[in-house]
């Protein structure tokens, strides 16, 4: 927890990011626990990047990531509305083709100091 996540930009400093190159604009995947998902669709509705969808039979719908997704900001709005706490983001997006991530570390819930 006390160490910064150190990542190097994959390209030169004067390079500009290629937005649709997954090596340069890395969007993290949200983790979905299907056992906890009751298919209520709230996460699909609130996702600002519109990257979630429901799948499966009508009586047992579950959430999943769209196959071709970009734009997850790891905002965790999906987690906030999920009554079953079955979906969450744990890593920030990383524009390795743009700049290095600096002075950040792992995700943490609010800490009572």
């Amino acid at each position, binding site marked *: 927890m006390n160490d910064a996540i150190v990542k190097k930009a994959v390209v030169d400093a004067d390079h500009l990011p290629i937005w649709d190159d997954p090596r340069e604009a890395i969007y993290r995947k949200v983790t979905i626990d299907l056992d906890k998902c009751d298919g209520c669709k709230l996460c699909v509705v*609130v996702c600002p990047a519109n990257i979630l969808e429901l799948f499966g039979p009508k009586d047992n719908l579950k959430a999943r990531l769209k196959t071709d997704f970009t734009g997850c900001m790891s905002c965790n709005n999906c987690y*906030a509305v999920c009554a079953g706490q079955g979906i969450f983001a744990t890593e920030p997006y990383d524009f390795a083709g*743009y700049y290095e991530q600096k002075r*950040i570390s792992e995700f*943490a*819930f609010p800490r009572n100091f």
Partner: protein
Amino acid sequence: MSDVLELEDLEDLECELEAADAKAGRTARRRTAIHDIEPGAAWNDVEHAILTRRSIRKFKGRQVPAHMIRRILEMGRFAPSQGNCQPWSFVVVRDKAMIAEMEQYCVAVCKNMTASVDYTNYPPGSEQRAAIMENTQKLNRASPNSFHPVPMTAIKSIANGRFAVFHKAPTVILILVEERGVGVPEVDIGVTGTNIVLAAQSLGLGTCWVGFSRLLSSNAALLEKLGVAPPFEIAEAICVGYPIGNPTQQTVSRQTHQIVWWEGGEKQILY
């Protein structure tokens, strides 16, 4: 006798303030003694509002009562500002037709922008892609924050009709910045807006900052309707409404950031 107040005198003053609170029947919540908050103490109401606030982008159709909007704007009025210059002014839009007009204009701008900057509409290796990418990279060098991949993704979604600029909110508050403010007036806009957003959160309202509201600045007719004129310009907007679902039921996790901590002649790095 010195005319500078000593620390002991100030502590006496605080006692008097507490007495004034008692007389007026107020709770002196923030005037705690130094050791009143134990390590690990539960969140108080303000901290709770901060931690459960989310950016809400899906609202119920129900309009927010006018007095609630006046109430949260009142909190914005009491925000700190550089030199107490209070470089803000508000435009409240609660008219569906007007919000639709604003939305329509922003969508049109985004459509134009995607046509001229979004090379991802064309497959790698194509001529159009190469031509647009050259243009985009120039713009990116001139304005790296605006042409960051996140807003570019949002612009694309707006142009495709998958994302509403003002989130179909029943009330939109435009925050105007007084360009002649002290120091960096845009910072003060952030501070007053934060007051508004947290007050709204504490009242059960959902809010979302909308930076794309600045796109309205290129539409003279709309600016006139909205009463935006120099030295004021649109700095930000805050959408307000009742959120769908229950986004405040739990706090979320977020990345930690470096803290340089200097104390007792030693420097520590904390996260």
